[in-house]
């Protein structure tokens, strides 16, 4: 298990107060806080070896290049990618998915093809595909949800049509917490020759991830949701696919030989990293990966199951709470979405903020999902390595205050 008291000492921001109350940070699905080790790595780079990478013959350039490429190795090990060539740094998950929809999609999606998504898609894994489909005359189909808000996968062997070319879905739903059976989907997809992209924005930060065991073709995630800085995303891609794909952006670093007539592309992964990359943040992301690796992702997962189970229990004891997502904490990530009676989620979020509790309120960039749930939005508490059951208790007290303010009719729990 995690030593949460010790972990909390590594996060300077947890000492701050909000409206005179200790900060209870439950908005980790939006972005996580950063430990001292990550902040120090950023400062050390700028103070000690700030230089551009890959082309310098001087000492600072060599040190910066080594640290940047070491971060790539850490990321590859973290998700058990077969080689560093399959790890491409982007700005964020959204850019990683756009890279695939552009570079792979343009060459492979044709009129009449189908792209398969889910009803729990985040806008970042929805809009790139909608754009591609509109451009190519392809269609999009959505896998629906069961009553428990898991994917409706009865008859999984019939999931794909003859014209299905790509299936993409979140590893873990950012709005519901649902963990999707990506290994199963990957098996089916491979048999049918369908490409499979996993939006791992809520997966890699919270679950042990092994892209080879999953068997997906692409896996995308972001540094800032896993203790690292903003501005760094990762695309893992199958090597043979990445080799065939054209670059996403043109510029420095991505070329091998340039003449006035044209250019030949550089080797992987640099072919996809045009221009000066986000050197400092990639290096600090390496420190975040070290931090998570030291904790052990199995321990991170166990901690989140425990706190999620506790939060679900306490919320169920409150009157007027509607919970979304699978009831069993083992089937979900550390995300708890709920509504308090008819009270609008923004009103709930506002009252919680006055108690120092930061949650997200709204549609969580999943508007189609909210529409199919029949709500305008939800309040969402999402947990990470530094959160405690005592913090859940603070949220529960704040919810009682919200209930009093909006004076919902009292009736006893079932």
């Amino acid at each position, binding site marked *: 298990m995690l030593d949460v008291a010790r972990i909390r000492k590594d996060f300077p921001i947890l000492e701050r107060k909000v409206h005179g109350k200790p900060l209870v940070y439950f908005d980790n699905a939006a972005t996580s806080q950063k430990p001292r080790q990550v902040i120090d790595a950023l400062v050390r780079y700028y103070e000690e070896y700030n230089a551009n990478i890959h082309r310098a013959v001087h000492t600072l350039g060599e040190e910066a290049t080594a640290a940047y490429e070491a971060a790539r190795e850490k990321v590859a090990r973290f998700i058990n990618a077969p080689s560093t060539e399959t790890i491409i740094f982007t700005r964020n998950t959204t850019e990683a998915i756009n890279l695939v929809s552009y570079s792979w999609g343009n060459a492979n999606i044709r009129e009449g093809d189908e792209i398969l998504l889910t009803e729990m898609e985040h806008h970042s894994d929805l809009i790139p595909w909608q754009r591609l489909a509109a451009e190519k005359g392809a269609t999009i189909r959505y896998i629906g949800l069961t009553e428990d808000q898991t994917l409706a996968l009865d008859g999984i062997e019939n999931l794909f049509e003859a014209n299905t070319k790509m299936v993409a879905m979140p590893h873990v739903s950012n709005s519901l917490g649902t963990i999707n059976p990506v290994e199963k989907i990957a098996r089916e997809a491979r048999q049918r020759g369908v490409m499979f992209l996993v939006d791992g924005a809520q997966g890699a930060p919270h679950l042990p991830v092994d892209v080879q065991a999953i068997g997906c073709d692409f896996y995308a995630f972001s540094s800032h949701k896993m203790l690292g800085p903003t501005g760094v995303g990762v695309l893992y891609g199958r090597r043979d696919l990445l080799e065939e794909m054209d670059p996403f952006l043109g510029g420095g670093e991505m070329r091998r030989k340039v003449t006035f007539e044209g250019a030949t592309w550089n080797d992987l992964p640099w072919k996809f990293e045009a221009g000066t990359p986000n050197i400092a943040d990639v290096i600090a992301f390496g420190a975040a990966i070290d931090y998570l690796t030291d904790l052990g992702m199995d321990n991170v997962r166990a901690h989140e199951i425990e706190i999620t189970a506790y939060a679900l229990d306490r919320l169920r004891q409150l009157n007027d709470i509607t919970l979304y997502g699978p009831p069993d904490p083992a089937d979900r990530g550390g995300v708890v979405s709920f509504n308090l009676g008819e009270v609008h989620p*923004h009103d709930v979020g506002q009252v919680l903020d006055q108690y120092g509790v930061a949650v997200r309120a709204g549609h969580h960039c999943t508007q189609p999902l909210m529409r199919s749930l029949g709500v305008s*939005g939800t309040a969402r508490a999402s947990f990470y390595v530094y959160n405690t059951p005592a913090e859940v208790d603070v949220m529960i007290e704040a919810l009682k205050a919200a209930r009093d303010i909006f*004076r919902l009719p009292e009736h006893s729990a079932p």
Partner: protein
Amino acid sequence: MTSSREEYARQESDLDELYRDIILDHYRNPRHRGSLTDPSASHEGLNPLCGDEVTVDIALRDGRIEDIAYRGSGCSISQSSASMMTEAVEGKSADETRELIHGFTEMMRGSDDIDPEALGDLEAMAGVRKFPVRVKCATLAWHTLEEALDEAAKAS
């Protein structure tokens, strides 16, 4: 640093100011909620950031708002502000209404030129100013009404 007891009291009073009784009363018992059968103009207002929606119908006769109705969904502030607005402008001339819209939005902007007390019950919304992200919720219905007045003026 203030003591935690003082902070606690301040936090309570901030919330009390945001959710004043009169605002909560309009939230729970909305006035003029619904639609008009034969409106002079109808306009839908949207706050894309938080998804608040308000549609305002007005029926003008001899330049006065003879009847008004609103419908929509959103947070307590957006919906109660719409409800309070309908009560405040019913029976007023278009010019008087525009003046009130101006006064209300100026108050919400924190303008010194407006005495909130002069706005009657609407003064209750002044507490929302402490919560800048919610100001747009409070003004949504008012901007929507203004659009409806413009539409009616164009049509006549």
